């Protein structure tokens, strides 16, 4: 499986905090190896940044600032944030290296690229 949907919507922040706290308390990984959460803003019908490179195991959190609902949907259909209304966020964790083109399922002219490095 390429991706696992970890947490969604407005609860993202709280759950992210809990996740990081759990990670920190477990004390296992070194700081440099700790998975990160990268943020992508959806604003004025654009993904910003439109191109992003992350490490396998990292998460990406998309937040919609537009009045229109949007999604971030993999072109080949293997992952999808679901509908994000204004102010909502969704984060996905990417385990498998590769280059993923994605778009908004509602406004297909909105596109982005995610590169997951090993």
């Amino acid at each position, binding site marked *: 499986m390429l991706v696992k949907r970890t947490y969604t919507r407005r609860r993202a922040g709280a759950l992210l905090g809990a996740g990081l706290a759990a990670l920190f308390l477990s004390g296992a990984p070194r700081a440099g190896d700790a998975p990160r959460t990268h943020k992508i803003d959806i604003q004025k*019908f654009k993904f910003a940044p439109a191109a992003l490179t992350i490490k396998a195991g990292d998460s990406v959190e998309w937040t919609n600032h*537009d*009045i*229109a*609902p949007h999604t971030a949907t993999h072109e080949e259909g293997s992952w999808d944030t679901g509908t994000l209304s*204004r102010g909502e966020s969704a984060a996905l964790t990417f385990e498998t290296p590769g280059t993923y083109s994605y778009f908004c399922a*509602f*406004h*297909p*002219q909105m596109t982005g690229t995610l590169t997951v490095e090993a």
Partner: protein
Amino acid sequence: MINKKTCAAALVAFAFSMPAVAEEPMNDLEIAHTAYTAGQIDIRYAHLALALSQNEDVRAFAATMVRDHTAVNDAAGALITELNVTPQDNGLSQALVKGAGEKVEELTGLRGKAFDCAYATNELGYHQVVNQTVEGKFIPNTTVEPLKELLTDALATFKQHEKHAENMVSSLKCS
């Protein structure tokens, strides 16, 4: 084939040339009423497309029109409640409703590609005219700041719809 875009533009141009509209700029409550009405009309067209079109792209576009115009009008409704005001019906709103009634009647009689092309072409023309009006008349004439902000956000959305409609018209190869 008659160019429907030109027809739509002519229809609304006629609406705009009505004395009541041309002589004095619309006030905030009239602008709010017309902007809301314009959104409701596009939702009505979209429901017709969802009922009558078999084309997947046309249906996806129509679903986006319902979703986006509902989001904008919900925000408008929330603002109207917050400001505790009542939008004012006006000549332009009435002309838009009348024009839409005629367009719905025309679209209702069509099926297949004829429907898809008529719907897509009307969406393009409608968004062009609405966008010109929101940008050129509504936003400059609005004095209530949150309404101006909402119209600006709405315009950004409608401009995407216009582009989307343009792509849809060209991929349907209607002419």
